[in-house]
């Protein structure tokens, strides 16, 4: 190969250096916020003069933070379940169906990915105003489902495309009814796609902030919204602690997703 890494000579060191700097650049804010969450300065001095866990104690003692986290988890879980269920049905239609306009429909299902989120947010806000859904759990779920569904459709159709329908036919000739074949063969065979879709859907809802700000009410807000509003009132290291917890959960789920992908290719 023309650009074989091992044949680059001195360039090799330069490229490695650039890579390291890029990684650091991307990780810096996260490392910064994690350090601050354990620092004992109320004024977010960096580097922290000493270390403490008191911001975490404060975080867990405050029912508003806990409430926001539970709301986030609840919304993300519902979004995850609906996104996978709807994503599976949509993917079945897009991959197995033979009808006119299939390609157009597929592109249509992916538009929320490319549409600016703020436009979706404003449109939903206006629509929900009439329906009275702003500030409700249903409103949150619908808003997040709109942005999560394209990811479900992509991952599940991807898994379904690599699954030969003849395998389902084989199961049916083996004596399984069509529904039994789908539940005992097709679904387990594409389970890696379903799991990935579930994790991505959960994460998208879990750290989504634009739509959530529009949907939130004083009584119902998600963790990112709580971070946002707290930040505007007073700058406390509790925000850093909350952010760290958000990051930790996200990273954990990403690791699970990566393991599932690895397990599939094994």
């Amino acid at each position, binding site marked *: 190969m023309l650009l074989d890494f091992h044949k680059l000579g001195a360039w090799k060191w330069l490229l490695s250096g650039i890579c390291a700097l890029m990684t650091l650049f991307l990780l810096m804010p996260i490392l910064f916020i994690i350090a601050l969450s354990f620092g004992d300065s109320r004024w977010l001095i960096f580097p922290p003069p000493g270390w403490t866990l008191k911001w975490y104690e404060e975080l867990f003692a405050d029912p508003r933070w806990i409430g926001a986290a539970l709301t986030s988890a609840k919304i993300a879980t519902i979004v995850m379940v609906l996104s996978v269920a709807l994503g599976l049905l949509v993917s079945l239609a897009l991959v197995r169906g033979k009808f006119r306009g299939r390609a157009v429909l597929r592109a249509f299902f992916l538009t929320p990915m490319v549409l600016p989120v703020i436009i979706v947010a404003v449109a939903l806000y206006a629509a929900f105003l009439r329906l009275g859904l702003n500030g409700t759990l249903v409103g949150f779920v619908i808003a997040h489902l709109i942005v999560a569904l394209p990811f479900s459709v992509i991952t599940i159709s991807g898994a379904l495309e690599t699954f030969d329908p003849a395998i389902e036919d084989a199961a049916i000739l083996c004596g399984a009814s069509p529904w039994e074949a789908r539940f005992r*063969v097709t679904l387990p065979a594409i389970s890696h796609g379903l799991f990935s879709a579930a994790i991505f859907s959960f994460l998208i809802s879990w750290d989504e902030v634009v739509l959530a700000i529009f949907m939130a009410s004083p009584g119902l807000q998600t963790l990112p919204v709580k971070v946002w509003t707290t930040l505007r009132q007073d700058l406390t290291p509790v925000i850093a602690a909350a952010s760290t917890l958000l990051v930790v959960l996200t990273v954990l789920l990403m690791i699970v997703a990566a393991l599932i992908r690895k397990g599939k290719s094994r």
Partner: protein
Amino acid sequence: MTTPYLHINGIRKVFGEVVATDHVELSIAEGEFMTFLGPSGSGKSTTLYILAGFQDPSAGDITIRGKSILSTPSHKRNIGMVFQRYTLFPHLSVGENVAFPLRVRRMGKSEVDARVKRALKLVRLEGFEDRMPAKMSGGQQQRVALARALVYDPPVLLMDEPLSALDKKLREEIQFEIRRIHQETGVTILYVTHDQEEALRLSDRIAIFNKGKIEQVGTGPELYANPATHFVADFIGDSAFLAGELASVSGERAALRFADGTTVAAVPLHGSGRAGQAAELMLRPERIELATEPGPEGASLPVTVEDMTFLGNNTTLAARTPWGAALSVRLNFGHPLAANVARGDRLHIRWSPEAAHAFVRG
């Protein structure tokens, strides 16, 4: 005649404007190995899919032991099938793949274990129970698929070009296995292929499909020695065809005249024809003899040698008839002429009259 074991009765399948199979009629005996042979799009696979229940025929019926199976859905037909593509369940081990048909039949654990073991032994894959399909070669996967299709003792096993994805050597190896398994189990097999060698090697009888219809049914030797149509003659074995016209017809024999006026006499004629109709003379290469003198009874033609190719057990000559048609002639190793034939030699090909066939064109 008693009721046949499996009877395909006038099956017709139309997709929109296209007739996929047209009045397919076939009786298969219990334990028979029947092959559907034909080019792609000839209706052989469609017939198999109708048997499997994946497609419904537009007309006709299929019976097993006199009972129609068409109203029974696929999963209750109790038919085994091996597909062209690899269809093992990717998330299940080999053992669980083979156990699947038994599990959906709610069979007891000890019975399942015993049958899985027996089926894997049959395809010579003992001890592979815990292997995942992705870790196996194509040939092994098709053998597992065969075990899975046989583990519930289906009365009929369908095989849809199961070896077409494998390389030649492996294909021959598994053909041998399939033969052995057919003999050991006595299961009735319907096998679809477009490979004539595979069909000849495996089958008790072969049904030749062309354009949605069965052209001829018979054992390999029957089809080879006595092809009913031009298509069958062309599809089974490689033959030389020489185009001409019927000079005269008397009963089942005809004389053919070629472009330059050369005639050959007393050729068995397939189908009916009148003098003046376009026809073709078919000769099997191994029935042609090369000689320096013309043969008796007009069963010979003069040829000019154009090229020779030594192929080990034979020397193949490219020859040309006086009116310019090309044909190839094989000389077995050791044939007296093989050593001293040269380009431009004028020789004669001869055959015994019943070894030639005449087919009316059109």
